[in-house]
């Protein structure tokens, strides 16, 4: 009976994550509009965009291969899998047991490979350019992300995300300079990986600067919808990993319905704050030239390494 309930809760959790991801994106966009003194789009705008795209007919370039058609499903699938295993609400659900942090990094890398390959598939200049930039950023961001995970796993002696969260959430409150450094690094990686300012501007189609949009230029209709949805999910996933590593308080460690409900409330509150935070960062910082992106990510890497060193030196 409990097993059945666990599975039910797990499936509900995945559905909730997949459905809530565009809402989170909508919230970030709304906050950003507010902060920039613009009239905000509706918080539901991402849903409308996705629905509209699903109703259109897909146009595919004549020379596109099967890979091009396959990629959106692969990417979306990877993101849903990630959403399933990240302990965003509870740490003891069936899938979350598989949430090894390094496996997660691999999952994101798989999605990236497909996106990039698909972008180059048609052979347009923009697709290739976007793919190249995407790979460069991934190549720089992944070491930083791994370093961040190493610090967390050094503290908790495990790379399993739910164990890390449990350990950090249950012990008495302590100052962890190493975690503070890695949190900064993680925020920077999050911005870079999700094509936010200062690395990319999600609101622009300016050819010379775009990365994410360039990748999707050849997609239309349901493929594009899936890709956009996957991007929203990716942001959501990243934010949830951040919660699991750095602010794990409120995570349910049991499967009692009450605990799960409470934990969902906590997650909602944290998402609201995180969305506002991301919007704030995006508002106060200016977009960097693409050539400065390595510097930005090197700084993130440095922060993570400093966290690691501080952990080793001070034991904190």
């Amino acid at each position: 009976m409990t097993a059945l309930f666990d599975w039910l809760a797990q499936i509900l959790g995945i559905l909730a994550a997949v459905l809530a991801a565009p809402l989170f994106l909508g919230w970030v966009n709304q906050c950003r509009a507010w902060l920039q003194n613009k009239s905000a789009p509706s918080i539901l705008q991402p849903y409308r965009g996705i629905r509209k795209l699903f109703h259109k007919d897909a146009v595919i370039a004549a020379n596109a291969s099967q890979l091009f058609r396959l990629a959106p499903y692969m990417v979306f699938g990877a993101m849903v899998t990630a959403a399933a295993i990240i302990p965003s609400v509870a740490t003891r659900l069936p899938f979350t047991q598989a949430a090894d942090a390094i496996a997660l990094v691999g999952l994101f890398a798989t999605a990236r490979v497909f996106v990039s390959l698909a972008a180059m598939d048609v052979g347009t200049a923009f697709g290739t350019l976007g793919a190249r930039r995407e790979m460069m950023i991934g190549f720089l961001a992944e070491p930083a992300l791994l370093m961040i995970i190493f610090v967390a796993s050094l503290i908790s002696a495990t790379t399993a995300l739910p164990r890390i969260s449990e350990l950090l959430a249950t012990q008495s409150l302590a100052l962890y300079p190493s975690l503070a450094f890695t949190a900064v690094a993680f925020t920077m990686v999050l911005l870079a990986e999700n094509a936010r300012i200062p690395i990319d501007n999600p609101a622009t189609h300016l050819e010379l600067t775009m990365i994410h949009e360039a990748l999707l230029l050849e997609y239309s209709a349901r493929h594009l919808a899936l890709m956009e949805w996957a991007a929203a999910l990716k942001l959501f996933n990243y934010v949830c990993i951040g919660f699991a590593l750095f602010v794990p308080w409120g995570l349910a460690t049991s499967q009692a319905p009450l605990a799960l409900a409470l934990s969902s409330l906590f997650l909602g509150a944290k998402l609201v704050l995180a969305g506002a935070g991301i919007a704030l960062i995006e508002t106060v910082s200016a977009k960097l030239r693409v050539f400065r992106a390595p510097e930005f990510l090197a700084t993130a890497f440095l922060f993570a390494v400093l966290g690691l060193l501080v952990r080793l030196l001070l034991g904190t």
Partner: protein
Amino acid sequence: MNMTALPFDLQLLNTLAALLLLLSFAMLSQRRIVTLINLLAVQGALLCIATLLLAWRTGAGHLYLSAGLTLALKVIFLPWLLHRLIRKLGVYWDTEPLLNTTGTMLVGVLIVVFSFGLAQPISALASTATRNSIGIAVAVVLIAFLTMITRRKAMSQVVGFLSMENGLFFGAMSATYGMPMIVEFGVALDVLVAMLVLGVFFFQIREQFDSLDLQHLESLKEDQ
């Protein structure tokens, strides 16, 4: 979890140590001299807080004195003096460092690892509660040294020099809860005089070269 056993003030001290290390890296990468001086002042302030905490923890009266000294000299007077100097001399930016920023940072990380190794035997022998910070102090000193090596402007080198002194001070505090008072006063006096001498010196350099770029100071070579 060894961390939970630590009392809060020690956690705070460790955090301060970590922040000092972070500041060293910030100084290593910073090219605006005004910001560099502000970072130096922040470093001094962190040092002052750490000293106060340690004084409170150990009840050692001389640490209060040295905290006061740090506050007066390194947080207030020297940054003020340096700000005044750059306003008068009109040097605001350092030129591109000799090695690019990312490269310098990587060297900095290596330095931290090296300092860790260097400080390990000392930390193992130390009996102070802050012994873990010795490695960080060594790293701060060596990174300040790196800052001095990679900069061209005299002003940045001087800030590096002062940052090095801060690191040494922090090292003395972590390893032994500070040096005897008479020595600390002497060191503070030397630093103060050094800065005053430098002030005079800078004006002489400027008068001669119309710039504080040390490239002008590279004519004395062996084969001349």
